[in-house]
């Protein structure tokens, strides 16, 4: 448990998250309008989305499927009966004057997400529920000096609100939770997890207490749209609350906004000003009743999820939990890794993991690239590993070959051939270089003979340099020792 030291002792920060994840679907939750990101304002709006008189919502079944899949991926209870209700409030970007959401009977109940923390520890965070709801439109305040314009493209888009239990205790845990959740959603294909486009946002609930005490009063910081901001918001909010209490004040239950420019949260409205949403079942919609066989079929069709994949990678490939965790975070990375391992009649998994998480990730990061766009695909990396394994190239050269492959897009054998990088394993050729080195450096030979073993390394370096790195280092060592003693 990570505690925060205050003036009056140690504080525990208690955090729960409400994540709004936009469901991947062609059309909106209750209308046929499209959902593509970045369209011109008000070009993806149906009569239903604009709440024209007499319009009625019709449930999009794809949204239900996506929510159930997500629920299954979160090891959660699937509620075979769920109910859409109306959450009533006035706002210009909410055309109906209510948001259709689920309240008392959500489609998904309790579940759990397992976090792999940076220190190697594992922690479980409970999921309270997942429900479906409509997104609101967007108010555009910068189009006119005095008027606000409304873009309804997002109005009615399907969101899953995934509510965690207040199980997290630090900003790091929240970061790990969001990363893990995003990874699961992406594996499932139910949400792109793209926080920049707003397809994943979160509300952060924070309270503080001395360890062992009852839960403190919480604040809710709305609409945080990156993992970094979530961490900043929590850190700021925890500090603010601790300072407030330690100065004799009280935390008020309120809704706050995160200001990303200043990294602080500020009050939006207090509990007294809170809306009375007057939820009631939407009479335009029937309860959602799921066929258990259909749910079972969806479950059978789920992809292998990160936790299962990680377990398999550690068990079958002998990878460390850390390496396995890194490799499974993105489905594409895991698939890349597995292709490398499976190729060439089976390759060394640890070696493959090192190359993927080392050279490949490094190159991707430098290029700001996704793995799908890498000029070295899994088969090409496999080819490189094969040359290394066969002793055709040395480990030292391999890195250069990798860089050349990245530049040119050529395969390893071609690069090695073109650049003449084959390892010299011909003992005659190596012996000639060794002899030359010994003859040229009598002083160093003396030092060695008088007991200075380190000089051996120096000789190896000279010889490798002379061979442009191509000499087989094992053979160089062997020959040197023989000749010097």
């Amino acid at each position, binding site marked *: 448990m990570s505690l925060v030291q205050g003036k009056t002792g140690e504080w525990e920060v208690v955090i729960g998250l409400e994540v709004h994840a936009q469901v991947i679907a062609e059309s909106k939750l209750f209308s046929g309008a499209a959902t593509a990101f970045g369209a011109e304002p008000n070009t993806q709006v149906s009569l239903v989305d604009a709440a024209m*008189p007499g319009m009625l919502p019709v449930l999009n079944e794809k949204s239900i499927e996506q929510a159930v899949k997500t629920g299954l991926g979160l090891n959660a209870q699937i509620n075979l009966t769920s109910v859409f209700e109306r959450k009533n409030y*006035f706002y210009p970007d909410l055309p109906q004057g209510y948001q259709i959401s689920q309240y008392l009977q959500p489609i998904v109940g309790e579940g759990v997400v397992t976090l792999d923390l940076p220190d190697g520890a594992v922690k479980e965070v409970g999921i309270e529920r997942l429900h479906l709801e409509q997104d609101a439109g967007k108010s555009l305040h910068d189009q006119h000096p005095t008027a606000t314009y409304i873009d309804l493209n997002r109005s009615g888009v399907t969101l899953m609100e995934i509510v965690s239990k207040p199980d997290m205790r630090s900003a790091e845990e929240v970061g790990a939770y969001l990363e893990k959740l995003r990874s699961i959603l992406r594996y499932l294909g139910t949400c792109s997890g793209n926080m920049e486009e707003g397809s994943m946002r979160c509300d952060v609930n924070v309270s503080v207490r001395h360890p062992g005490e009852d839960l403190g009063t919480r604040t809710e910081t709305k609409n945080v749209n990156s993992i970094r901001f979530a961490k900043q918001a929590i850190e700021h909010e925890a500090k603010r609350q601790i300072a407030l209490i330690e100065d004799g004040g009280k935390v008020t239950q309120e809704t706050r906004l995160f200001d990303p420019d200043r990294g602080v949260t500020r009050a939006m409205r207090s509990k007294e000003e809170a809306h009375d949403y007057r939820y009631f079942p939407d009479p335009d919609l029937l309860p959602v009743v799921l066929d258990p066989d259909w749910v079972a079929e969806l479950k059978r069709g789920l992809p292998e999820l990160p936790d299962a994949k990680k377990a398999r990678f550690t068990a079958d490939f002998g990878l460390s939990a850390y390496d396995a965790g890194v490799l499974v975070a993105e489905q594409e990375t895991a698939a890349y890794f597995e292709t490398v391992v499976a190729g060439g009649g089976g390759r060394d998994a640890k070696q493959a993991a090192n190359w993927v998480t080392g050279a490949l990730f490094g190159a991707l990061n430098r290029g700001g690239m996704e793995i799908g766009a890498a000029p070295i695909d899994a088969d090409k990396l496999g080819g490189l590993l094969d040359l290394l394994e066969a002793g055709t190239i040395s480990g030292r050269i391999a890195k250069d070959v990798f860089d050349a492959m990245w530049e040119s897009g050529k395969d390893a054998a071609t690069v090695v051939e073109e650049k003449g990088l084959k390892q010299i394993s011909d003992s005659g050729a190596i012996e000639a270089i060794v002899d030359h080195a010994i003859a040229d450096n009598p002083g160093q030979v003396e030092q060695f003979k008088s007991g200075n073993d380190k000089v051996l390394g120096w000789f190896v370096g000279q010889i490798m340099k002379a061979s442009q790195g191509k000499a087989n280092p094992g053979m160089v060592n062997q020959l040197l020792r023989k000749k010097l003693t």
Partner: protein
Amino acid sequence: MARLNELTIAVARDGLAKGDFSAKELTEASVAAMESVRPLNAFITETPERALDMAQASDARRAKGDVGVLEGIPLAIKDLFCTEGVLTTAGSHILDGFIPPYESSVTANLWRAGAAMLGKTNMDEFAMGSSNTTSYYGNVENPWRRQGENRPLVPGGSSGGSAAAVAARCAPGATGTDTGGSIRQPASFTGLVGLKPTYGRCSRWGIVAFASSLDQAGPLTRTVRDSAIMLRAMAGHDPKDSTSVDTPVPDYEAALSGDVRGLRIGIPKEYRMEGMPGEIETLWRDGIKWLEAAGAITVDISLPHTKYALPAYYIVAPAEASSNLARYDGVRYGLRVPGATLDEMYEATRGEGFGAEVKRRVMIGTYVLSAGYYDAYYNKARRVRALILRDFTEAFENVDAILTPTAPSAAFAIGERMDDPIAMYLNDIFTVPANLSGLPGISVPAALTGDGLPLGLQVIGRAFDEETMLRVAGVLEDAAGFDAEPAFVAGR
């Protein structure tokens, strides 16, 4: 032959089929009638040109042998139905200038069946009212008068304009909507047949919503047969309305066999209200006798939760309305009254845009849904609703239809009962249970009061068994032989 505007749908249909007259001639008669009934204020928008265009198109179709169920029949449309390119107001100031770019499913069905639109009829604002006195566009007058009196009477509501238009013989039929009795009660007040189908029978898509779980469209006509013909054209599954039911639409007219022998008709004792006028009691007894004479078996039944229906209705309906009407905010369409801030714009727009009755119900609805009161009101009303449905379900194990009066009184004068909303709400006491339970109900004109005003009898049927209900209604119609005419008939 009677003047064309005075024909029933069935008679007009036959005349059109025989070539006695064209749809254009028939519609021209109705357009002229529409002009002559203007003193009743039955229409908010007249669409004579559209009517004539549609009639001519109908004649052209007929010439090609393409004849729909309502081919060439002019109809009046309650202004709650969105009609493409034609102002749609719901009787409210807040929908000022609102011209829908879409057509409601029910009216689209009617046009597909060959009907022509005469215009949009006046109504209580957002269908909230039982007297058609809450419309922004003014009161509608009932074409009937008390004998020896010339005080204008209410046509009932909320489909008062539709009822007045059909009763005054300017249209052979009109659409209405019925949330708590808004088709059946005005039918009773104006000597018409008014049918509320089973919830889910007609699509609600494109009908301005009042209370979504109760609203249902239906016909107002002069005869049971016309009601059957019109319902067939209006009804049908609509994938755009999740609460519309995917079940075949029968030929309702074929169900009018006149044979009710052996049918069991329930007479619910709880509908015998204290203080109910003796004339209504007598009418009910007549109805029982007529059905027995036709070979039906009447059975005393109990619907024990009836007395809770009205209070439950006046919680559920306003609750849903408070939410349904939230979209009228001045942002996207209709009236906008500017304000210095967003909240001021909302307040000014809704304050000016809604009338007193709508505001009352929005406030009641907001209250019963609010934190701390939800369980005591809204949830309790939902439980009551379930009990009322159970009453009916149990009763229908033993009977095929239920016979009751339609309304506790005949039409009253404009201005009467206006100061006491509760007294006004009592108009719905016999009609509301069918809405709460989703069952079909029909009002049939069956008698005149001593001072010459029509009274209706209501038949309630099993869910999706409009056929039996219509057959019983047809027998009542025949037995009652109601042929009185209102004081005000178009063109006379």
